[in-house]
């Protein structure tokens, strides 16, 4: 099949939407609610394009290509339509940028800046400025939900229903009072998918007390330590502390999906309770000792227990938070040196 976009011809296949074709060929169509991993949502109306033969512009994300379609992605009237979409969103958006977690990496900010280069989007004399409203309870304590910042793109609703399969969120009420509500909160598994797909600061993570703007943090790609799947995630690090976990949707094996441990389980890295020196219980209290003293003690005691009660009297518990190499050496130690198969790992518990 062949379609024409902006005067250029492209080969397309059945089942592709106009937006798919545009993105595959580096043609820019602005989007807000579009999410690649779910079926098209079509709630924002930003991706409208003009198709020859149709009287109204259509949404590129949910219109499938047909043979011989002639499409225009940019024109003065399309620009006006898109500006009206943003104007509608901006009318009810609170003045939160200085205190919002998402400022700097916010899709709404990027769109407003891009569209506002030609002039103002909304006449600010209409309406009064909205101020910050406190967050409301959500289905999980790991996420804070600010309903006033929500742009009703419904990415979270669709991701929870289709991609995760739990269906926790619905859109309640209509018009100006419409908001997302965790109606089936018992279904929530705190996977954080809604948090990851929210384009604005309506859903923000609630685990790290330290926050950082995008230019203050470094993004480090790594593998989740918790279980054997080995999901790839990105740690956002600021001032030597992990502040957030983000994902890249293109990397196997998880393609951007995480579970609660991968998404929110990073507190242990900078925890105050982590040991810095070996501790030995003397007179009923833990005291800091040197490595030599600690190792000597362990070696003596393990040997004496092994001689008196046999190898199987000793069991070893490793941790998912160690590296694979550490865990390999540990189980080798238990099996070869101590001579027992009693080895387990905290992820199995």
């Amino acid at each position, binding site marked *: 099949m062949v379609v024409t976009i902006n005067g250029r011809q492209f080969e397309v296949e059945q089942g592709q939407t106009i937006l798919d074709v545009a993105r595959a060929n580096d043609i820019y169509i602005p989007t807000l609610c579009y999410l690649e991993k779910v079926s098209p949502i079509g709630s924002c109306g930003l991706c409208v394009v003009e198709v020859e033969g149709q009287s109204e512009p259509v949404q590129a994300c949910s219109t499938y290509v047909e043979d011989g379609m002639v499409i225009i992605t940019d024109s003065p009237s399309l620009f006006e339509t898109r500006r009206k979409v943003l104007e509608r969103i*901006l009318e009810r*958006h*609170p*003045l939160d*940028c*200085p205190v919002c977690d998402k*400022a*700097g990496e916010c899709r*709404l*900010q990027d769109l*407003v*800046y891009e569209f*506002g*280069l030609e*002039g*103002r*989007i*909304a006449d*600010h004399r209409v309406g009064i*400025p*909205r101020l910050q409203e406190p967050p409301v309870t959500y289905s999980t304590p790991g996420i804070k939900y600010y309903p006033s910042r929500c742009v009703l793109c419904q990415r979270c609703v669709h991701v929870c229903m289709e991609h995760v399969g739990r269906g926790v969120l619905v859109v309640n009420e209509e018009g100006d009072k419409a908001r997302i509500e965790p109606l089936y909160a018992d279904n929530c598994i705190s996977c954080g998918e809604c948090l990851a797909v929210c384009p604005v600061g309506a859903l923000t993570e609630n685990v790290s007390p330290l926050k950082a*703007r995008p*230019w203050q943090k470094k993004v480090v790609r790594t593998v989740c330590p918790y279980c054997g799947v080995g999901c790839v995630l990105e740690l956002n690090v600021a001032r030597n502390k992990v502040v957030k976990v983000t994902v890249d949707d293109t990397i196997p094996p998880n393609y951007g999906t995480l579970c609660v441990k991968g998404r929110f389980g990073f507190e242990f890295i900078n925890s105050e309770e982590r040991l810095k020196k070996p501790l030995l219980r003397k007179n009923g209290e833990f005291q800091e000792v040197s490595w030599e003293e600690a190792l000597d003690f362990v070696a003596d005691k393990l040997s004496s227990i092994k001689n008196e009660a046999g190898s199987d009297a000793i069991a070893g518990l490793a941790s998912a938070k160690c590296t694979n190499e550490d865990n390999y050496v540990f189980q080798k130690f238990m099996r070869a040196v101590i001579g027992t198969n009693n080895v387990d790992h905290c992820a199995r518990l």
Partner: protein
Amino acid sequence: MTVPLEKVGEEMILNMGPQHPATHGVLRLVLQLEGEVVKRVVPMIGYLHRGIEKLCEERTYIQNLVLTDRLDYTAAMSNNLSYALAVERLCGIEVPERAQVIRVIMAELSRIAAHLLWIGTYALDIGAITPFFYCFREREKVLDMFEMISGQRITPSYICIGGVRKDITPEFLEALKSFTDTFETYILDYEALLTKNPIWLSRTRDVAVLSREEAINWGTTGPVLRASGVQFDFRKATPYCGYENYEFEIPYGTNGDCYDRYRVRMEELRQSNRIIKQAMANLPDGPILADVPYVVMPDKSDVLTDIEALIKHFKIASGAFQIPKGEVYSSIENPKGELGFYIVSDGSSRPYRMRIKSSCFVNLSTLPVMIEGRHMVADVVAAVGSIDIVLGEVDR
């Protein structure tokens, strides 16, 4: 650091500075003296080097504006103007007319303020205290006017990319009118104290002469160049900010000595006053900031009440805008000479390289030419003062 001078016979090698009341800042002059006659003088600079050019690479173009105030801190508005003109030329921004006229007023007020400070401190170096008080009395009026419109006296950062920050108020125009109406009489006061004063004449006439060829060959600009007989001023040669619409003259000297430099600056005070009067009479209405939403911040009252202005302000302040790739050199006539900015942009919101061409740096390099072998220690003071250096610009 070692000094590139070697003693010969009974000669002395002495330090003048870096702490010295007459070196106009932290300037170190190493003098090789035979008795009182100066055989060699080596200016050693760098004591006020703050790495401004490097700092500019780490900051956005909007943040760099405040660093430019600190170059020639006696005439901060002019520095802002030079930088803003360079960036505007790089981006192709047209500044509205009202802003251009306001810029001319501010630039000329800076010229007056800088020259007043120079006259006061130069006379003080030579030994006359009285002009200092009179000149600073007028300079206070200019600084009060700067405070009226920008909130700051010395480092206003008022002229910004795209225009000026805030519109001028009727109080400002009133103060400006009363200033320009009476300033001529004060110039006559200063001249009465110095111009025909026999002590002044014998301290500055034929002292530190810089010939016309030497001035051109060494690349001097500003009053130093003009006192040596070259009638060159950037406001006439390459007009900016609408200077071609004003009537004014370029004073120049014939001898190239300290006295001529003094007379040139004195006459420039009159011409600046003349320009300000013309600007005040022809102040057009209109906006004061160019409508370039990608780099010019929205109005602060809008930012606090409107989400769109808040978002734009956030984006611009956090450096998410883009400046066209390319390079530009743009210079203006500062009170001290030519202040030029050479900016190389790689398309991002931070300059790749910003080179500041400083007139004081070049003019100071003529000091050995003026002094060596001809004059005594006391004349070094007169010569250094007459070049009118500000170490902030020399060292950056």
